[in-house]
């Protein structure tokens, strides 16, 4: 049932990438528990604008958990305390009256802060550009049903392809590793016949790009998979390791 609660938001404010940031605490009153967390930030921003202050900058777009734009490290969890959901799918009924909610940006050397809670995740695009594709030109495809693919493989590839590239895995990892993200893409193509032809090239290129961009080494803590809003599984990382080791041994 809908009720109203009061909360304190302890938010990281940082004017630009070079500036030194700090936490500022804001009080919000009478927030209906049916309100989403981002709508609560909207309410805060309206309040700030009314006072002539600059609103809190945060990334958000689709607000239905699929675009991967929203981030936010809330009370020690990327995308907040709910599991299998992004920040935009987090509702205030998860918090209790009078709670102080700490909101921080993703923190990783590869994701520098742009402003307040917004970070630059361009590194993910660069990893994808390194090899996250099947090399063929538009128009050259054969009939879609020409190669049967087992339902098991197709479903597993779909599970891996579900990754929304939000960066929660990197944010959750104490090592700032991007392995879960990279492994999800590599797995999708490794499981499908279409991706096989350049599988070796792909895994080497994507991994070396990942290393080059300053992401950490995976130590298999599993925090990435535990915090992933799309429940991407750790077995993807094993597959990535396997693909990479085989590719290197084949050299």
């Amino acid at each position, binding site marked *: 049932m809908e009720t109203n609660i009061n909360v304190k938001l302890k938010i990281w404010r940082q004017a630009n990438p070079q500036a030194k940031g700090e936490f500022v605490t804001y009080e919000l009153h009478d927030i209906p528990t049916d309100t989403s967390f981002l709508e609560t930030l909207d309410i805060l921003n309206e309040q700030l604008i009314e006072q*002539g202050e600059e609103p809190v900058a945060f*990334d958000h777009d689709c607000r*239905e958990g699929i675009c991967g734009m929203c981030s936010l490290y809330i009370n020690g969890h990327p995308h907040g305390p709910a599991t299998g959901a992004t920040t935009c799918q987090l509702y205030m009924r998860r918090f209790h009256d009078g709670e102080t909610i700490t909101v921080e940006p993703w923190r990783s050397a590869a994701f520098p802060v742009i402003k307040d809670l917004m970070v630059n995740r361009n590194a993910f695009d660069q990893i994808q550009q390194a090899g996250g594709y099947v090399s063929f030109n538009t128009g050259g495809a054969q*009939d879609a049903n020409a190669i049967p693919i087992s339902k098991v493989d197709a479903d597993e590839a*779909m599970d891996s392809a*579900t990754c929304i590239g939000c960066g929660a895995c990197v944010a959750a990892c104490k090592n700032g590793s991007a392995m879960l993200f990279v492994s999800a893409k590599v797995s999708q193509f490794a499981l499908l016949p279409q991706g096989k032809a350049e599988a070796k090239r792909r895994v080497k290129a994507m991994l070396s790009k990942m290393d080059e961009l300053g992401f950490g080494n995976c130590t298999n803590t599993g925090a990435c998979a535990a915090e992933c809003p799309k429940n991407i599984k750790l077995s993807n990382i094993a597959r990535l390791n396997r693909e990479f080791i085989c590719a290197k041994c084949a050299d």
Partner: protein
Amino acid sequence: MEENTKNNVAQPVIDSKIPEGPIAEKWTNYKAHQKLVNPANKRRLDIIVVGTGLAGASAAATLGEMGFKVLNFCIQDSPRRAHSIAAQGGINAAKNYQNDGDSVYRLFYDTVKGGDYRAREANVYRLAEVSNNIIDQCVAQGVPFAREYGGLLANRSFGGAQVSRTFYAKGQTGQQLLLGAYSSLNRQIKMGNVKSFNRYEMHDVVIIDGRARGIIAKNLVTGKLERFAAHAVVIATGGYGNTYFLSTNAMACNVSAAMACYRKGAYFANPAYVQIHPTCIPRHGDKQSKLTLMSESLRNDGRIWVPKNIEDAKRLQAGQIKGSDIPEEERDYYLERRYPAFGNLVPRDVASRAAKERCDKGYGVNNTGQAVFLDFSEAINRLGIDVVRQRYGNLFDMYEEITDVNPGELANTINGVNYYNPMMIYPAIHYTMGGIWVDYELQTSIKGLFAIGECNFSDHGANRLGASALMQGLADGYFVLPYTIQNYLSDQITVPRFSTDLPEFEEAEERVQANLDHLMNIKGARSVDSIHKELGNIMWDYVGMARTKQSLETALEKIKALREEFETNLFVPGTQEGMNIELDKAFRLRDFITMGELIAYDALNRQESCGGHFREEHQTEEGEAKRDDENYFYVSCWKYNDDDTKAPSLIKEPLHYEAIKVQTRNYKN
């Protein structure tokens, strides 16, 4: 442009450049005779593509593959986040893999009929024709479509069709198709054919000697305006649903790029055709920022109902009983009752209006009286919860996260029949069929300016069928524009690259800058969102699901007053240095206001009901939409008249149907 003087009004003649020949041969003929650009010359031609959704990303990637130099802009932090990603249900294609009698013609026919006979026939036929190539293309890219145990592709049914032709990847088809296009785009970025600009927003289009030659875009991180020149400009910036403030569109979806083209002389076609999606989660408080769509695929197994008795409805509204307390025989499955042939799978406009009709009569089922039930009890009893969860599990979870109600939970047993918690749904603004006017080549009324995807108007008529948006976006981007743009570029090969120091660029940038300065300097008292919400309310109340002459006139008056409020009482905090999210929103709101007016003008002009446009004065006795083919069998093209405060002028593109007999839409039998 040529002038004619029919009806004593000077009107530019609209040339939609539809190729000669029978409908099935038009596209083949076009491709056989169009002009091409040779590979060496392609390298010397630059193309700007604004937007990275299905249409934008696929076009940029394909143009890059062909060898053109492409500049690709995206408002989000990565091309992969464009709002196409949120499409849930699927993509149509006439593969006939299910052997249920599908064909290119039938897909074409269903789409034209679904669009209430207001689409351009030749465009739709082409769309149906290339639909099969899209599926082939996506599978080759590694898109993990759903499959049967035999390893072949699976299909599901969607509204407005009697065949199963929708390909899907769980409830995330848009995501998978976009990631496919994004992967092709990435390949071209790596190869250096496409240069990608993220967190950039197009603010104006630059016209030199009557041709689009570049854009002014703002770097949203630095706050600086930048100039980009090219031989042609393609906009793929999506629809204008956010004019209504609350819609299923993403927060950054806006109409500014389209409005910039409109102000520079591109016609805006059929703005009144706004799609209202029947299955969205109903509104709650006034703090809401967007409406969440529940996929149309739910209507495959979900049944839509309200109580038969008004007393039950009243008790539901008062919160005294729950939906699961009402037994089968007391439920009114109004879609199955009214449309036996299509049942719960009628097209979206029909389903939305039927829901509104029940709620207006007082049968709404939540505290606002603005909701109907979508019930899975029958499906769960028939198939078991596991099968139902396998199909819709992620949607059930999403619904529960938002509303705290689990639709898969057994709630009641009456006379031995199990009743599960029904979902509550209500229609919401979802998609816009109208858009920048384009000809058969997808070129706007400005030479060298192309519009693709939801941004243009061409293929859906007055209503879009489910799973056709993805089809159209990808058709335009992969298979249509890359051909037709060459027909334009073939005589541009001798034109050298442009300098961005030309006076036209200078002047365009100055105008944008002046506009931004103005927004900063109003220094009033109201936030952007507070004004936008007010615009949204006006639009929903007066230009929403049911429109009348009077409501539209009221809307025009109210929007005029709101523009005044915006121009004099807006407050934008901060400076123009660096990122200023409020300034960006203010810039977009100015265009939403103009767009809102444009929708109202068009709705006022179109004195008939068709598809997403419903005029209460024009309905049958049974409450169905009543078209007026005699007077309104045309595309309304609106031309900008120098100033936002002036009414636009109407130009008509008459529709010619050769292959299909225009008739009243019938989903009853």
